[in-house]
């Protein structure tokens, strides 16, 4: 109960504005530092792969982007659930604001995957299981954003989009495993697996730093988008009031 009332404190947009104002400089700083360290370590310091040569460096952007693509969808669904259950206005705004960022990560994962696929597999695109499931994730993001656009009232749009996000998050694992079962060429996951990662620490560390950098970047852009969404709604209300008086 106490946790709930604490959650509701953040429903106040003014409090959110103050809090996000306090977090943003730190998050921006963290993003810049982590991104600089991670990119330098990954692109310059880390060793070349004995098979893949320098192209392995695409991994330091590709893998974090793919992780964030999935993480953002789960985040969106969790925020949607919170918005549906507790009618928490900031949760709806968070879900809406996260969608384009997630679509961006998904797009980045697809593009870097194609760039990596060209030298490795000799083709830009293969109908491989994991590539394809990321493509479908991208379609799901597009559908979610299109549904937001289709409603005029934000209150209605948020609930419709929340239902879609929850239906989507139930389906994402089904789609992922069915597509994987369908066809797999992509190398299996080598970091997140039972028995510890099968990747050398000299590559694992920059990869993890890049993943943290992407996370910090997500926080920065999410807060920016949420703040501007709140301001946009406030401007809308002010304009309506002015038109009415």
């Amino acid at each position, binding site marked *: 109960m106490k946790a709930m009332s604490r959650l509701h404190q953040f429903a106040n947009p003014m409090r959110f504005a103050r809090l996000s104002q306090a977090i943003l400089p730190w998050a921006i700083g963290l993003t810049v530092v982590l991104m600089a360290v991670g990119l330098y370590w990954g692109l310059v310091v880390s060793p070349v792969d004995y098979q893949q040569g320098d192209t392995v460096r695409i991994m330091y952007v590709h893998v974090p982007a793919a992780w964030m693509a999935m993480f953002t969808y789960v985040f969106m669904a969790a925020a949607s659930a919170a918005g549906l259950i507790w009618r928490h206005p900031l949760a709806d705004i968070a879900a809406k604001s996260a969608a384009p960022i997630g679509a961006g990560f998904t797009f980045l994962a697809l593009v870097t995957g194609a760039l990596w696929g060209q030298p490795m597999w000799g083709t830009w695109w293969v109908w491989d299981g994991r590539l394809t499931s990321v493509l*479908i994730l991208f379609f799901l993001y597009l559908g979610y954003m299109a549904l937001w656009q*289709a409603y005029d009232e934000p209150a209605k749009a948020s609930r419709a989009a929340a*239902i879609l996000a929850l*239906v989507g998050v139930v389906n994402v694992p*089904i789609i992922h495993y069915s*597509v994987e079962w*369908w066809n797999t060429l992509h190398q299996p996951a080598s970091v997140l697996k039972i028995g510890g990662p099968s990747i050398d620490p000299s590559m694992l560390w920059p990869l993890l730093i890049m993943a943290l950098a992407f996370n910090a970047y997500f926080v920065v852009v999410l807060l920016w988008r949420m703040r501007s969404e709140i301001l946009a709604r406030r401007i809308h209300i002010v304009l309506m009031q002015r038109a009415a008086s």
Partner: protein
Amino acid sequence: MSPFLQTIRRDLILARRQGASAFLAVGFFVVAASLFPFAVGPDPDVLASIGAGVIWVSALLATLLSLDRLFQADFEDGSLDLLVLAPQPLFLLVLAKTIAHWLTTALPLIIAAPLLAMFMAIPPEGFAPLLLAMLIGTPALSLIGAVGAALTVGMRRGGVLLSLLVLPLYIPVLIFSVASISAALIGQDGSPAMMLLGALSLFSLVLAPPAAAAALRLSLE
């Protein structure tokens, strides 16, 4: 007669009184699938190898086209409001409407499927798996489609949006149904894929009606 059965009966009567327009989806199904031989050439080997996929994709699109009928007419004449206000749980009535949709859309597709299988030069031993896969898989199409139809009911240009929302969710059904047919055609055991297809249908049977009911409530506010 229970309200559940009455809802099914009402939708079936409505579909029958619409006459030929109820069969538009089958017409689309047959015409769309018949386009493929023109596109890829009449070679029976090529047609047989893509046949199951072509039939399934055409069935997906035919289902998709018929989905806007599911709630739109009831929304326009106001009977959807009555369904929402009815004392019965809304998800049961949504399920009844979805069953009626399946009976009027998917069942004719299944009946027409052997004709298309013949057009696509699928060997006779593939007929039974094709029909079985359609029988097991199409309920999932109607159920998942009901969620999309409920989300877009009353929208000005809901049809395009509906396809963007629903088609990605249809992919697992497509994969397992075509896999089970292809396995049977090369003499392998198609039953694992068929069972997964059944799992998809049962899973959507549990989850789709409540989600569609929630979406309908919202659309009618």
